[in-house]
C-alpha cells in the first residue's frame, strides 16, 4: 500500500482545513505522501510538512497549476501516480473536478464523497442525499477516493515530513483560465466553522440577509444559505449548504427561515446541535432540530443578536 493525498491549493494558497482532514482520512490506512502542485508552493509545502502522518511532500511548482485546471492537473498526475495504490483528495470542487478525470484516464471508478474509510478497499459513502449510507468495496487496483471532510478532524501539526521537489511534464491546450470572482470575507470558512448561521427563502431579500450576517458576526460564525436563498440572489453560490452545495458539521447550526427539505438536511444534519427559527411550526426542520423557536425571524433574530 502506498498512499498519496492531493493537497488543495488555490493560486498558491493552501486549503488547509480540507487538506488536513483528507490526510486524516487517508492516514487511517498508514503514512501518506502529499502532492503539492501549484504556482507557488513554499508556504503550502511548509504547512503540509507539519501535518502528522505525512512522510513526504512532493512539490511541483509550475504556473500551469495555479488554477488546478482539470486537464493539466490530471495529465501531470498520471506520471506521479504510477507507484501509488491509493489517491485521496478532498471532496471539494477541486477534488470532484479532478479525481474522476483521472479515473476516466486510467479506467478506474472513483469512490466519491467517502464518509468513512473502513479498510484498504472498503468504504462508506452517503447516497440519495444522505438518506442512505452504502458500504462499497472496490476491485480496482488503484483506489481513487474523495473524502467528505466534514466527517474527519484535522491532523495535529506535530509532524516533520521531507519536502521533495519533483518534475513532471504537463500541458493544457484544451482549457484556459479567464478569471475568478471569489468571495472574500473575514468570517470563518463555512466548511470548518464551529458555528454556522444559515438563512433561507424566508429571509426575503439580499438586504434582509444582513440580519443573518449580523447574528453570525455576533457569534463569530460562518454564513450559510439554502438553495432557494441562493437561487433568489439573497446569497452567493458558495454559501449554499446541502446535497449539491457544501456539507457542514459545526458544533452549532442555526437555520433561519429554512423549511428543511431533504436536500438541505443532507448538508447539515451531522451538526452537533441544530437550532431552527421558523414561523411555521409544521416546518420539517423542526424534526431534526435540537431546539426550535416558532416565531417571525424579523422579530426574533435581531432580539437574539441584542441579547447575546
Amino acid at each position: 500500500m502506498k498512499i498519496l493525498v492531493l493537497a488543495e491549493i488555490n493560486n498558491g494558497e493552501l486549503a488547509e482545513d480540507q487538506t488536513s482532514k483528507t490526510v486524516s482520512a487517508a492516514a487511517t490506512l498508514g503514512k501518506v505522501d502529499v502532492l503539492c502542485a501549484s504556482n507557488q508552493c513554499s508556504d503550502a509545502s511548509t504547512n503540509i510538512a507539519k501535518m502528522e502522518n505525512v512522510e513526504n511532500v512532493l512539490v511541483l511548482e509550475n504556473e500551469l497549476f495555479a488554477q488546478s485546471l482539470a486537464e493539466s492537473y490530471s495529465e501531470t498526475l498520471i506520471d506521479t501516480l504510477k507507484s501509488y495504490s491509493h489517491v485521496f483528495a478532498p471532496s471539494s470542487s477541486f477534488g470532484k473536478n479532478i479525481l474522476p478525470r483521472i479515473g476516466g484516464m486510467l479506467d478506474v471508478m472513483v469512490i466519491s464523497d467517502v464518509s468513512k474509510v473502513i479498510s484498504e478497499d472498503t468504504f462508506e459513502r452517503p447516497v440519495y442525499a444522505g438518506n442512505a449510507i452504502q458500504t462499497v468495496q472496490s476491485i480496482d487496483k488503484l483506489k481513487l477516493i474523495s473524502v467528505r471532510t466534514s466527517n474527519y478532524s484535522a491532523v495535529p501539526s506535530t509532524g516533520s515530513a521531507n519536502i521533495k521537489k519533483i518534475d513532471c511534464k504537463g500541458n493544457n491546450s484544451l482549457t484556459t483560465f479567464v478569471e475568478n470572482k471569489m468571495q472574500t470575507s473575514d468570517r470563518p470558512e463555512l466548511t470548518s466553522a464551529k458555528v454556522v448561521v444559515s438563512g433561507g427563502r424566508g429571509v426575503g431579500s439580499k438586504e434582509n440577509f444582513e440580519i443573518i450576517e449580523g447574528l453570525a458576526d455576533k457569534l463569530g460564525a460562518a454564513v450559510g444559505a439554502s438553495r432557494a436563498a441562493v437561487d433568489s440572489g439573497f446569497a452567493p453560490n458558495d454559501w449554499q449548504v446541502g446535497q449539491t452545495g457544501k456539507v457542514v458539521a459545526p458544533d452549532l447550526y442555526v437555520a433561519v427561515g429554512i423549511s428543511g427539505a431533504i436536500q438541505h438536511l443532507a448538508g447539515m444534519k451531522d451538526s452537533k446541535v441544530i437550532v431552527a427559527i421558523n414561523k411555521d411550526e409544521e416546518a420539517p426542520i423542526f424534526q431534526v432540530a435540537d431546539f426550535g423557536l416558532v416565531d417571525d425571524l424579523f422579530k426574533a433574530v435581531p432580539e437574539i443578536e441584542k441579547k447575546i
Partner: protein
Amino acid sequence: MKILVPVKRVLDYNVKARVKADGSGIDLANVKMSMNPFDEIALEEAIRIKEKGNAEEIIAVSIGVQQNQETLRTALAMGADRAILVVATDDVHNDIEPLTVANILASIALKEGPSLILCGKQAIDNDFNATAQMLSAKLKWSQATFASEIDVKEDILRVTREVDGGLQTIDAKMPAVVSVDLRLNEPRYASLPNIMKAKRKPLEEVNPADLGVEITQRLKVIKTKEPDSREAGLILENIDQLVEKIQENVGG
C-alpha cells in the same frame, strides 16, 4: 453542431428514499421516477443553445432499463430531436456505474460526432458527480464542470463554474464535455402539443454490446443502511430560552 445530452431516470427528488429491509439497496418498486433534475437543466441549456441558432440537433441518451423510454419521451417533448436508449439492465435496482456510463457515451459520441456533451453535474441517486469528468477524459476533450453560465463563441465555450470559493470562468475548446449546476437555467415544462409530437420523434434502441462496451461493476455494494437518525428536540417557549441554548452551545 450537434449536442448530446445524457439523461438518467432516478427516484423523483420529492420522494424520500427508503432502504430495503434486507439492506440490499433502496426500494425502487412502485415509486415515482423522474428525469434527474440536473439533466433537465442540461437539456434545457441545449435547447436554448439551439434556439439561439448555435446548434442544429439535440440527441438525448438514456442508459438503464427499458422504462427509461419514458424519460426519453420527456426529453423529446422538452425539445430534443431524437433519442437513443441503451438497455443495459433489466433490473431497475442495478445502477450502472459512471465509468461504464462514460464508456457507453464515449462510444456513442464517436459515432455521432457532437461538438458538445451537456451532462448534469451529479445524479441525485448515487450522488457520484463523476460521469462528465470520466467521459471527457475518455474522449480527451476539454472539461468544464459545475457550469452556471455557458457562452458559445464559435469553437470555444466560455463557461462560468460554481466553485467552492465563488465563481471561476474558463474558456474550453470544443469539442467539450460540460457538467451543469443548478443556477444555469430553469427548465421548461413540456407543453401538451409537444408531448404529442414527441411520440413521433425517433427513439432508437441499442445494447451495450452493439457499442462494444461491457457492463462492469468496480464498486461492489456490500450493504445499504439508514443513516443515524436525529430525534426532534425541544420547541422553546421564548427568545430568552433560545439565547441561553445558543450561548451554551457556542463553546469557548
